[in-house]
């Protein structure tokens, strides 16, 4: 066999050498025995030579590192408390940073699971410089399909329809796709197949087939593969299940996918998405689509304005919730601060431990270990700590992330992927990121100890009161840690203040014990005004009979501020100025204000029986009254709403005989109606009976714990119409998810971070003081023997740390005030708030004093005799 490594047959090589030398010696005339003996003398001990030769190879990089790792592990085993504290510190930091990173990754960097996501675009148009949505007809879609910039285009639409045939009727979200849509997006089936072109050819009615989302498949078919081929009823029409999608696709929003009816009827138009050809940018696509859009504008002037320009935006961009980006970045920065604090903490622990290992380093240096060797040893130790911390942190993230995701404001982040991260919280990019973090933290936390201990001087280390220098490093690190902690605490305090402020904001109504039941009529039901009006009235009457319901009101749009009503055109003769934004109009029953506890300021509210139930009257909010009639009463004024003569779409039924004119009869208090952060906009309330929508919100004020009543409310709806689906939620829940979600999310996360930061600071301080005490054990003993009182000793033990804390505190305060302008742009609170800063300083100082007290007390109870007896 050929040797592949020079060490193969080494013994044989050496034996050959001896044999040859022996032969030479025999040739010189020696006797064979003498010849062999001389050969052995010339060469030396074969075993020793073999060992020396092997040693040339043995000390490879890997072996040396393995040696260092073994040594480090032995060190950790010797002081497990130290190792555990350091690992847990880093784990907390890395878990926070990794967790936030996975959210950032899912929400910003990679928000959709579709293949090659950057090529998927949404088409829009630019009208007089402003972006607008685009709706195209089937013919226009075909024209777009044939342009040379796309690999595929598809139309899509969403709808809520009624699912029947599976117990109670149920409202389900439907996503319509032109049949090629899923193929263009690159969505594979988990079971069965996705649509192909034949399922919905342009100009022909589509096949009655559906593809289920994973969620729907789980909830309605228990995840059984027999779902394929089954029939479900949507709006009472049968559809065959042909496929199920993998979990990560459409994991929020619509539940069932249906092929779109690409009719050539020019009244039907849909939104368009497309996949750009490889190498075609959005800008290039816009340029090349211009002629086509010019043609559209000529053919369909009612839908395309003059001089229209195409707008091509990547799906990722359009779905970024722009105002959530800074919030995420803020959280990300905070998590990085926490990691930095953890690193400082580990650094402190390492320095402290280094101090007690000075002898070891001195001995190793004396035995010939070079500075680089010692530094490497220290670095391997901190790397080992960091990677154990990262492993623990990622594991913690794996369990903890779903909880964080549940806190995320649903409507601010593209939710599809958030569910996906909750399912698979640790992905490859996240793992890479945390490994990078571990490396960085090892470097940061290992740097200071490596520098100060790799240079041991025998002369200084032999003395036992050593470590003056390292104690200085200690205090510097402590001050830095405190400074960053102050910054984090100040940020948290500011966020808490904002949230508290929001809770205090006057809502103008009472959200407690209010539930909302939303009714979405199945398609093509109650299509006459009178029938629909009767149905709604019966619903209201039936619900009023439910036990513990105190009052019932109806509202067309979600009646729960801050979401209330829809802007629509209103003409106020003589009071309109061209710049006016359309007021928000809400259609309600007369008892809405009393149910919501919105105060009536002036005038009256109509009664349910007035003018046959359809009085042409309106009530305005205070903002509206002040804006249009600043100097006089709004009562008795008239305004016109053209929509009430001819409704803008077939789903709304106007009361017969409406001329669109309304008389203002009352003024009510303001409620937030464009979000909790904005002042209320002018708004108008009119009787819901004047125009009946196909959806309705029944608002119930109940006497106690409202959600428990959801069952009796469903029952009530069923007795009126067994085919009518209903969904129930509480006003407070709606309020939290709509208005406060972002603040609540930021504040809760920051609070979590701040608590950990504070804990780390306490651990850091504790170890600084206790190591100072143990280093100066002998000194304190001597001082006590010479008559120093306990107070003096405590003072000596604690004073340097207290100085460091105070310095860190002031540095942190300065940092907070200095960074305020930067952070202010990212929203959420004011770091400059004196209340916050004082509170933070107090909390930190108290925590610091408490953590210093234990080791200080130990210093005070030193027995001088014990101290003098130690070496």
């Amino acid at each position, binding site marked *: 066999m*050929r*040797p592949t490594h*020079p*060490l193969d*047959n*080494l013994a044989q*090589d*050496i034996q*050959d*050498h001896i044999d*040859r*030398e022996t032969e*030479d010696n025999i040739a010189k005339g020696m006797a064979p025995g003498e010849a062999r003996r001389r050969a052995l003398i*010339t*060469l*030396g*001990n074969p075993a*020793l*030579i*073999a060992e*020396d*030769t092997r*040693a*040339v*190879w043995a000390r490879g990089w890997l072996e040396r590192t393995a040696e260092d790792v073994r040594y480090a592990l032995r060190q950790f085993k010797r002081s497990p408390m130290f190792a555990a504290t350091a690992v847990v510190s880093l784990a907390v930091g890395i878990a926070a940073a990794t967790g936030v990173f996975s959210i950032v990754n899912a929400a910003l960097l990679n928000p959709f699971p579709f293949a090659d996501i950057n090529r998927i675009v949404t088409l829009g148009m630019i009208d007089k410089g402003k972006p607008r949505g685009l709706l195209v007809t089937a013919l226009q879609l075909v024209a777009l399909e044939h342009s040379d910039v796309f690999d595929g285009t598809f139309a899509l639409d969403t709808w809520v329809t009624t699912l029947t045939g599976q117990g109670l009727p149920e409202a389900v979200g439907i996503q319509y796709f032109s049949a090629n849509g899923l193929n263009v997006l690159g969505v594979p089936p988990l079971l069965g197949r996705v649509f192909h072109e034949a399922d919905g050819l342009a100009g022909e009615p589509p096949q009655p087939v559906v593809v289920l989302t994973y969620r729907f498949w789980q909830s309605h078919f228990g995840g059984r593969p027999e779902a394929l081929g089954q029939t479900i009823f949507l709006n009472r029409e049968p559809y065959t299940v042909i496929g199920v999608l993998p979990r990560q696709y459409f994991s929020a929003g619509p539940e069932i996918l249906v092929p779109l009816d690409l009719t050539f009827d020019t009244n039907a138009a849909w939104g368009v998405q497309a996949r750009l050809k490889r190498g075609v940018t959005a800008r290039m696509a816009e340029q090349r689509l211009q002629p086509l859009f010019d043609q559209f504008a000529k053919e369909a002037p009612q839908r395309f304005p003059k001089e229209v320009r195409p707008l091509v935006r990547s799906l990722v961009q359009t779905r970024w919730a722009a105002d959530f980006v800074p919030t995420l970045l803020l959280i990300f920065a905070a998590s990085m601060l926490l990691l930095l604090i953890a690193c400082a903490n580990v650094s402190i622990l390492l320095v402290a431990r280094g101090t007690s290992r000075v002898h070891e380093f001195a001995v190793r240096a004396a035995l*010939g270990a070079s500075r680089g060797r010692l530094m490497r040893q220290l670095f391997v130790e901190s790397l080992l700590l960091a990677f154990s911390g990262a492993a623990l942190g990622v594991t913690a993230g794996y369990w903890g992330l779903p909880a964080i995701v549940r806190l995320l404001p649903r409507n601010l982040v593209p939710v599809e992927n958030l569910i996906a991260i909750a399912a698979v919280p640790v992905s490859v990019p996240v793992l890479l990121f945390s490994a990078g973090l571990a490396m960085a933290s090892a470097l940061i936390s290992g740097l200071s100890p490596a520098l100060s201990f790799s240079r041991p001087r025998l002369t200084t280390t032999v003395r036992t009161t050593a470590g003056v220098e390292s104690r200085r490093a200690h205090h510097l690190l402590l001050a830095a840690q405190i400074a960053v902690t102050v910054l984090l605490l100040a940020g948290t305090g500011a966020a808490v203040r904002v949230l508290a402020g929001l809770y205090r904001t006057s809502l103008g109504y009472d959200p407690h014990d209010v539930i909302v039941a939303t009714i979405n009529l199945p398609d093509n039901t109650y299509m006459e005004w009178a029938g629909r009006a009767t149905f709604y009235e019966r619903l209201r009457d039936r619900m009023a009979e439910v036990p513990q319901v105190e009052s019932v009101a109806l509202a067309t749009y979600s009646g729960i501020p801050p979401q209330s009503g829809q802007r629509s055109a209103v003409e106020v003769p003589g009071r309109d100025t061209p710049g006016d934004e359309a007021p928000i109009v809400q259609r309600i029953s007369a008892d809405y204000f009393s149910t919501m506890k919105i105060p009536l300021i002036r005038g009256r509210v109509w009664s349910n029986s007035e003018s046959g139930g359809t009085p042409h009257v309106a009530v305005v909010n205070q903002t509206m009254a002040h804006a249009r009639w600043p100097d006089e009463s709004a009562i008795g004024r008239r305004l016109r709403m053209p929509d009430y003569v001819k409704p803008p779409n077939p789903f709304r039924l106007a009361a017969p005989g409406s001329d669109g004119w309304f008389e203002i009869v009352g003024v009510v208090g303001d409620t937030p109606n464009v979000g909790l952060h904005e002042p209320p906009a002018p708004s108008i309330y009119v009787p819901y009976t004047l125009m009946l929508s196909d959806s309705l919100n029944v608002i119930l004020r109940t006497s106690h714990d409202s959600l428990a009543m959801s069952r009796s409310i469903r029952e009530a709806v069923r007795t009126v119409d067994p085919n009518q689906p209903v969904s129930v939620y509480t006003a407070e829940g709606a309020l939290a998810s709509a208005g406060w979600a972002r603040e609540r999310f930021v504040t809760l996360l920051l609070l979590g971070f701040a608590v950990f930061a504070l804990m780390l600071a306490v651990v850091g301080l504790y170890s600084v003081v206790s190591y100072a005490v143990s280093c100066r054990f002998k000194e304190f003993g001597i001082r006590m023997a010479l008559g120093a009182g306990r107070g003096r000793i405590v003072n000596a033990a604690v004073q340097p740390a207290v100085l460091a804390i105070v310095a860190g505190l002031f540095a942190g305060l300065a940092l907070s005030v200095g960074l305020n302008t930067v952070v202010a742009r990212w929203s959420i609170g004011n770091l400059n708030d004196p209340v916050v800063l004082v509170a933070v300083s107090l909390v930190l100082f108290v925590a610091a004093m408490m953590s210093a007290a234990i080791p200080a007390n130990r210093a005070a109870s030193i027995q001088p005799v014990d101290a003098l007896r130690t070496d």
Partner: protein
Amino acid sequence: MSTKLDRERTALLQGTLDLLILRTLRQGPAHGHAIAKAIEARSHDVLQVEQGSLYPAIHRLIKGGWITFEDGTSENNRRAKFYRLTAKGVKRLTRDMTRWERFAGAVACILRPTTE
């Protein structure tokens, strides 16, 4: 104090042995014993190779990539590893020889100053 000096001396000796091995191998591939014999012979037996350090030195040179080895058969039909100079080794030999000659020349100048 002594450790440092010791190390330098060893380094010097090592370096010299390396140079001698490289120089020997420039004549052509050879096995370990042949290298030792060649050095002794060429120095007219003045330099007695510390044979025990020969093998570590050879392996150090292999590890550094200056020499390589292959299996061969020696003059009397015995199998042996034959060591051979690599291109990198040739380069190092040239460099080290120049350096050595300069050093030896300088020492010679001091020891036998030319009369003025």
